[in-house]
């Protein structure tokens, strides 16, 4: 896989909170410092920096990565920002991979930061500007509406109930109770609690949605010869994939994320995975909405189409189930500072494979995991497969 085999050797994150007192730059610095400390490296060891963040409209900072660059450790170094909407967090790790796999750099710091609370009165206002300026924006669409369309399409295609889907929110918020950085962990939450939350855009209720959050996450990625020196427990990047569908989302079948399947197939091929259901032991699919976890598990080919809800009801995706899914607590539980949330999923797989996930540790010593994010106008899939 590439000229250099690439390992993740360190990870760090800030708490995910509703309204951080720190500036965006300070959040980036905190996560970057923690990641470096976790593998006992300093900025002198870093050859290049990837700084990713999702829409500039949240912070209201044009060329946001330039502003963040010193906070993320980029002073005097090659700094680059990639951007694929909500898929950015996992894509940042893919960028880190190609920086190192290219042979140009030995050690790369990957930082994702998001500060949504700066957007007043509510970040949904920023989301208005993701829609087509001619055909859609005049309708004043809201992001929740298009998710309501998608959730409805998924439910009606497979005859699902709201309760089938709320099980995901319950699982993830309970898992998050064990995450020290989580915003919405709750060990006692029930399906009734979710079903009793206010309706935002039917069938989407507040309990189905991840919270607006501030936070940052960072990884240290390096070439094999450095990894062997730095740690006894490198976690290898085995495969990466990403794919983008048309901007004309109204022409698509909303009940299945084809772009996620394409990204997964690319990553599995690179990783030599032929039977993902047997060869993948743990998954962190993107769950900004509860139905999205189910949607994405099917796109990742881990369950048949329409069968992820049944598996969830049977407990297969619980932390002690056959395929632990979002043991971190996911976006629904830990929080959703967009780009940082995606990278948090990669960090969770890293900690789980190293057996360092503490109270969240899944049993059975998993050897391979997949993290996935999704974004743009229900359009892009980003996938990374990690193994030990």
């Amino acid at each position, binding site marked *: 896989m590439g000229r250099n085999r690439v390992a993740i050797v360190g990870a760090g994150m800030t708490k995910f909170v509703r309204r951080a007192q720190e500036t965006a730059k300070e959040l980036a610095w905190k996560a970057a410092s923690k990641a470096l400390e976790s593998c006992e490296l300093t900025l002198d060891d870093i050859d290049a920096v990837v700084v990713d963040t999702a829409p500039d409209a949240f912070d209201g900072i044009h060329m946001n990565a330039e502003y963040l660059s010193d906070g993320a450790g980029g002073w005097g170094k090659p700094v680059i920002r990639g*951007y694929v909407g909500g898929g950015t967090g996992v894509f940042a790790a893919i960028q880190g991979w190609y920086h190192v796999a290219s042979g140009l750099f030995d050690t790369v710091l990957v930082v994702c930061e998001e500060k949504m609370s700066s957007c007043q009165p509510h970040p949904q206002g920023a989301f208005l500007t993701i829609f087509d300026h001619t055909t859609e924006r005049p309708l004043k669409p809201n992001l929740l509406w298009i998710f309501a369309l998608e959730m409805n399409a998924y439910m009606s295609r497979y005859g699902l109930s709201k309760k089938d889907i709320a099980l995901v929110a319950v699982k993830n918020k309970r898992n998050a109770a064990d995450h020290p950085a989580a915003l919405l962990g709750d060990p006692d939450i029930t399906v009734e609690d979710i079903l009793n939350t206010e309706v935002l855009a039917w069938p989407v209720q507040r309990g189905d949605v991840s919270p607006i959050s501030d936070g940052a996450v960072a990884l240290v990625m390096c070439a094999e010869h450095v990894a062997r020196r730095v740690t006894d427990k490198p976690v290898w990047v085995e495969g990466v994939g990403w794919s983008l569908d048309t901007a004309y989302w109204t022409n698509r079948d909303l009940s299945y994320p084809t772009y996620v399947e394409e990204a997964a197939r690319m990553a599995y091929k690179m990783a030599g995975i032929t039977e993902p259901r047997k060869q993948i032991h743990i998954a962190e699919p993107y769950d900004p909405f509860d139905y999205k976890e189910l949607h994405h598990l099917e796109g990742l080919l881990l369950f048949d189409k329409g069968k992820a809800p049944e598996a969830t009801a049977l407990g297969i995706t619980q932390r002690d189930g056959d395929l632990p899914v979002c043991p971190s607590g996911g976006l629904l539980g830990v929080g959703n500072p967009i780009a940082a949330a995606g990278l948090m999923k990669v960090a969770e797989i890293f900690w789980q494979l190293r057996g360092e996930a503490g109270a969240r540790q899944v049993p059975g010593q998993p050897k391979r995991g997949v993290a996935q994010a999704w974004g743009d106008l229900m359009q892009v899939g980003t996938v990374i497969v990690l193994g030990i």
Partner: protein
Amino acid sequence: MIREVAIVGVGWSPFRSITPDLSYKEMMYEAAVRAYEDAGIDPRRDVDSFVTVAEDFNEGTSIFDEYVPDQLGALHRPVQTITGDGIHGIAAAVMQILTGQFDVVVVEAHSKASNVLTLPHILAYAMDPVFNRPLAAHPYFIAGMEMRRYLAETGTPLEACAQVVVKNRANALRNPLAGYGADLTIDDVLASEPIAEPLTRLACADHADGAVVMVLASGETARALTDRPIWVRGIGWANDTFWLESRPWGQARYAYLAGQMAYSTAGIKSPRTEIDFAEIDDTFAYKELQHLEALGLCKPGEAGAWTLEGGTELEGEFPVNPSGGSLGEGHLLDCTGLARVLEVVLQLRGEAGPRQIEDAEVGLAFAWRGVPTTSGAAVILSN
């Protein structure tokens, strides 16, 4: 990087001050079709990955990545955005190809600056929101202060900066792609109205619309596709600090660092003798001089005299911005670096028409992301 990655196709939509007849999608499509024809490829079959370079605020759209795939023939394929300069996009493509997992990667960047009614206000959103933005100053004040400092540290005369404008806009008259060709004198430039003293209006590049698409391929594929690949010899990029309060105002340290990385990946020890010509960021006229020095193409403080002596003219010993640069072509926002690279490719292929440099074998392109950033990227190409 010895013959591992090459540019095998280039396409463009010409650079014009306004383009009311074209949408950004149409400009991207026009540039892409030219590039794919030039490379002899079908994007749906032959391209492994696409890179677009764009900034949301310049586009007026959040998550601009959404609106990229259709007009590039990139549906259901790996597509990513780089929010940087076009040369950062080239860097992403080069890295992907060097991993060995991608054979053909396409890079696109464009500018639809004429759609933006309040560019200075958009740019002001790039200022540090806590310390600098409340000053509510036009961001070009940074360029004025930096120019003053550069002139003071090096003793460069104002006339040398003005000569950069005269040279570049004259070069642009020989470039059918360029939107701002003009026959000016040093006095014209110095007498134009002040923007942020000592910076005058004619010493700032005006904006233009346009698009550039490039097709990059791995060595073996490049040789199979074309008998005149333009090889990527070296690449480098770097940031200095973003803090206005702690940056070195006289020298462009980001350009020095990006240049050093590019020279080291290219195995170049003596850039002035090993490189034949350069396309260098000239968003503001003094920047061409400052960047020439930082890139080690002349000694510190000598770029002004060199320019006044004609050393960097089209017929000089080391032509700089034969295309006309940003001053002559128009500043293309995030596409600026790709416009620089495009000229280097055309020169190395011998396709630069009336501005062709004889026996050009190695060329350098360097881009800067403009105020208030300290972000630069360089690429070295050879035929």
